[in-house]
């Protein structure tokens, strides 16, 4: 460990009381493998206000933190900069260290030289090192201007909302309720139970799915702490961690709770339709209960099928059939308002619909079924009373073929592995063998993934029972017109030979995919998605069940395809995470809010118009605005909008950001891209690019703001005035904005700037605007690449011109 201590050289532009310590982290070889850390430390030491600069193997390690604390005490450091990974990962760690050493945590700043540097410039060591220096220079510049802040505490309502009543939702609800918290479990369907209720047996233990689920379901129904809201949908979520206001629409069942589920009504109902629960293989009536063990057991009327429209009762068969007089066609939907402290998203997944894979002939050939249809067929409580009947002639097939990865791991479906299909097929194959040992079973696969506890044994058993596993999916399936048997052809990639097999039934082992309406849920809760479309966790390793938004957690297949065991595990984890918050009863929220400077305010009310949280209002008497900091979420768009610098954005002040810009453009400005990235999407996207080692040019300097709405035109102008070749402003997609709609202001401002640049005769191309979400690292990388041509094309005259024109601004 080299150490460079430099005698503090006073200079005019330095901040008197700023005594900054800089620590450059090697992160093993993650950084040091590319960036010359000692050199960076040396460079840092020479920066204004820096009283000491060190490099260290692992700053996040205990020694690292101890070192930091020690120095703060010994050298009376008043500011600390750590150059290592993303603040989104370790800022909390170092902030805590500072606090422990008696330094206000807002006097800490981070330079992201891993995700934004070493990992994305693996092969350009010098440039990466230079960039690292710049990043540190920027951090130090900002650090010098940091102010201590006081965080205020918010109470946490000790109630939780669980969205989705599948096995994950059920587990979360029970765990939280047992812990003693009030839980609202919102389920869109008439009954809880979800996918698991549809399954026959579970792998690898082969126990009956509903048998183990039903008791949990009824526990939910009975639990004094759980308010079960089935046939209900979340319509609006407002508020913030610990204090969510949730609007739930409880749709009418048209059957009152007095229903004893005697079932007299259903046979009386003249309208029938395929039962969704049985994958359409069994019939239900317009008045029905989805399945025997449904919770609540109360029947429900499907008004879309029922003959009775509007308020005219045309058919009263069910009314007549119901002895307890529980049918009420006048039931109205209820709009409920819930106050909860935490929200757990357990909305589950959809099953891939293979119809589009025409070569497999699903919906064309009756005897080609999906694995979910199979579950209902083999289930004793199912439409065929457990007899595996092929749909065409209701005969028990003598031979069946399973086709794996249907809709998974393929350009023609979903790119990812759906995780459960292999084991599910093995389980199904064994079930068939158990009932009809003579059946010939072929499994066409790409890889068999039997990674879990007890999985391999099950796989072995299947092989022992001589289930034929053939590597290589069929290229086509077609039907024999006479027998309605099916032909499969493809290549056995192990034997390198073409197969042509004839079986009596084919089971397509379909994958899982995000809910069709996951978009809606995402908007509702301002969640992020990973490229596969499932909801993104706050950190893939360290915060796997937290959503990026405080107070919201993920459980089950909503986060990614997983089997029952994993869903339950994750559910309990989510419950634990939520409990921690609620047990504390309060949480401190970042002091990053805006503050009004009344003397500067002219009462123009520009800020009032742009504040997404109505935190600012105009006071007639004073002819000035009033800013309620408690209501402020800290996007900073007001500050960006204010023409009179009357609103100061804490921890992201104009001066601090100007300082970062100046630092970023101190050397070779004309080769550089200054990028403003919002904390939640674009900056996270850049992190994601780093984690995924997506390479892109080194000439970009990213400045983090909480929201792209914080980016004031003057920042962009300053960058150009400082001679930057190009500027990128990047934020969340519309609708994803963590501050409701602040990014619409970004759009407006950039458009204004483009107009201005045109007026001034500047090439507006040099200013780029891009919407990049947390999972779009690829998009960010390619954006930077694409901008290279812009950088290349700006000549010095142009840069000088813009300097001249924009300096005054």
């Amino acid at each position, binding site marked *: 460990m080299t150490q460079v201590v430099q005698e503090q050289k006073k200079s005019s532009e330095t901040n008197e009381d700023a005594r900054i310590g800089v620590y450059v982290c090697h992160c093993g070889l993650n950084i040091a493998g590319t960036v010359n850390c000692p050199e960076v430390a040396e460079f840092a030491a020479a920066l204004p206000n820096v009283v000491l600069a060190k490099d260290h193997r692992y700053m996040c390690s205990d020694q690292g933190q101890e070192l930091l604390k020690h120095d703060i005490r010994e050298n009376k450091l008043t500011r600390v900069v750590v150059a290592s990974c993303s603040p989104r990962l370790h800022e909390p760690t170092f902030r805590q260290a500072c606090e422990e050493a008696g330094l206000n945590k807002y006097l800490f700043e981070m330079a992201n030289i891993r995700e934004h540097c070493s990992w994305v410039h693996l092969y350009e060591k010098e440039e990466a090192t230079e960039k690292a220096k710049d990043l540190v220079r920027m951090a130090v510049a900002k650090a010098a201007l940091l102010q201590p802040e006081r965080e205020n505490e918010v109470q946490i309502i000790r109630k939780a909302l669980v969205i989705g009543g599948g096995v994950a939702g059920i587990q979360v609800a029970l765990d939280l309720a047992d812990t003693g918290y009030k839980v609202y479990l919102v389920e869109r369907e008439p009954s809880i139970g979800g996918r698991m209720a549809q399954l026959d047996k579970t792998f690898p233990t082969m126990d009956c799915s509903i048998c183990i689920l039903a008791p949990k379901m009824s526990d939910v129904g009975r639990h004094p702490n759980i308010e079960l809201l089935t046939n209900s949908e979340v319509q609006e979520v407002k508020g913030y961690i610990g204090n969510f206001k949730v609007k739930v629409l409880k749709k009418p069942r048209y059957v009152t709770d007095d229903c004893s589920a005697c079932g007299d009504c259903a046979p009386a109902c003249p309208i029938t339709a395929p039962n969704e629960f049985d994958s359409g293989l069994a019939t239900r009536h317009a008045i029905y209960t989805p399945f025997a063990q449904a919770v609540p057991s109360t029947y429900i009327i499907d008004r879309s099928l029922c003959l009775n429209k*509007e*308020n*005219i*009762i*045309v058919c*009263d068969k069910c*009314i007549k059939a119901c002895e307890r007089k529980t049918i009420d066609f*006048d039931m109205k939907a209820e709009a409920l308002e819930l106050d909860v402290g935490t929200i757990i998203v357990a909305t589950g997944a959809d099953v891939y619909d293979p119809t589009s894979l025409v070569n497999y002939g699903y919906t064309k050939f009756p005897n080609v079924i999906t694995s979910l249809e199979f579950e209902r067929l083999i289930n004793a409580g199912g439409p065929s009373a457990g007899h595996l009947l092929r749909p065409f002639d209701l005969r028990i097939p003598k031979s069946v073929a399973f086709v794996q990865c249907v809709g998974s791991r393929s350009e023609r479906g979903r790119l990812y592995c759906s995780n459960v299909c292999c084991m599910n097929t093995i389980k199904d194959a064994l079930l068939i063998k158990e009932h009809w040992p003579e059946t010939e079973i072929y499994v066409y696969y790409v890889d068999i993934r039997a990674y879990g506890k007890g999985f391999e044994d099950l796989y072995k058993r299947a092989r022992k029972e001589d289930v034929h596993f053939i590597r290589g999916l069929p290229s086509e399936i077609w039907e024999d017109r006479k027998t309605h048997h099916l032909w499969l052809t493809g290549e056995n990639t192990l034997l390198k030979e073409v197969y042509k097999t004839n079986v009596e039934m084919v089971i397509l082992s379909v994958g899982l995919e995000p809910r069709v309406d996951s978009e809606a849920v995402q908007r509702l809760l301002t969640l992020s998605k990973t490229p596969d479309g499932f909801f993104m966790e706050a950190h893939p390793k360290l915060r796997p069940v937290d959503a990026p938004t405080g107070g919201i957690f993920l459980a089950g297949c909503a986060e990614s395809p997983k089997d029952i065991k994993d869903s339950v595990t994750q559910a309990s984890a989510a419950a634990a995470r939520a409990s921690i918050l609620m047990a504390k009863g309060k949480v401190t929220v970042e002091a990053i809010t805006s503050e009004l400077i009344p003397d500067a305010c002219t009462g123009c009310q520009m800020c009032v118009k742009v504040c997404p949280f109505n935190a600012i209002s105009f006071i007639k008497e004073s002819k000035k605005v009033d800013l309620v900091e408690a209501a402020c979420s800290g996007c900073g768009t007001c500050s960006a909008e204010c023409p009179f610098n009357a609103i100061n954005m804490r921890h992201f002040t104009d001066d601090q950001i100007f300082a970062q810009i100046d630092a970023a453009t101190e050397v070779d400005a004309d080769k550089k891209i200054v990028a403003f990235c919002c904390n939640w999407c674009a900056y996270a996207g850049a992190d994601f690019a780093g984690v995924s080692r997506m390479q892109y040019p080194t000439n970009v300097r990213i400045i983090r703001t909480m929201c792209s709405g914080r980016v004031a035109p003057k920042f962009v102008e300053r960058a150009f005035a400082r001679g930057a070749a190009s500027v990128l402003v990047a934020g969340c997609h519309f609708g994803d904005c963590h501050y409701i709609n602040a990014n619409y202001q970004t759009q407006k401002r950039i458009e204004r700037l483009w107009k201005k640049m045109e007026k001034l005769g500047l090439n507006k191309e040099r200013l780029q605007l891009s919407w990049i979400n947390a999972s779009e690292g690829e998009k960010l990388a390619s954006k930077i690449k694409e901008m290279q041509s812009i950088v290349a094309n700006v000549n010095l005259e142009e840069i000088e011109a813009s300097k001249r024109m924009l300096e005054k601004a």
Partner: protein
Amino acid sequence: MEGEMVHPYERFLRRGMIPHIWCEGCGNGIILNCFAQALDELNVDLDKIVVVSGIGCIGRISGYTNTDSFHTTHGRPIAFATGVKLANPELKVVVISGDGDLFAIGGNHFIHAARRNIDIQVICANNFIYGMTGGQYGPTTPLDAWTTMTPYGNIENAFNLVHLAAACGAVYVARWTALHVRRLTESIKKALQKEGFSFIEVVSQCPEIFGRYNKMETSLKMIQWFKQASLVQHSLDPAKAEITPDKIVVGEFVDIEKPSYGRLLREMTTKAKEK
């Protein structure tokens, strides 16, 4: 589809009286139909039920029900029914009559029978007009409506019948349109099983007269109006149960328990006998 088959409600209809005299699409036929269905479903002893009606189109209904029945003078069915019910409490006495009969000429009898809580069921076919006399305005004719007596539009305010009935102390008050046949039947059943004075208003279409005068020339147009305008609001304050061109509030507004006049009379009589 062979026509010879006997209509299931034939047994509730007086032999030789059907087809009735009412016009095509008239709501009265539907009310008769619902009444028959209610008797069928409750399986009432037809020998123990008396249907009393007044004057007007619907007044003929007592002639069509296969029960003891009486077609009284204009406005007097409730007073007559009071006599019947008191003289023989075993009998179920149902008054079915029109808005003019029950609330104009007969208004006095209605309010007092309701006040006394006489144990009878009153079903009012409200067609907003005097149909049989050719379309004069009545106590329920909406403001501005055209009738032969209001050639410049009606300037009288209409009664809100359910509000009136509730205010007078009826123990059961409901309003349906002639399109809400199932609910009407249910209400009739409820009323028949209830002790005390119950009132059911049936907003009923008179296409021939009211409809033609007021831009609803066909029975279908009138009943479509019911479909579009009707709004079910159970237990709403009957004062708010309005009937306007675009809103007909229907539902059950009152359903309370209160000793009937008959019960109190019997109690008083026993006391008197002991003396």
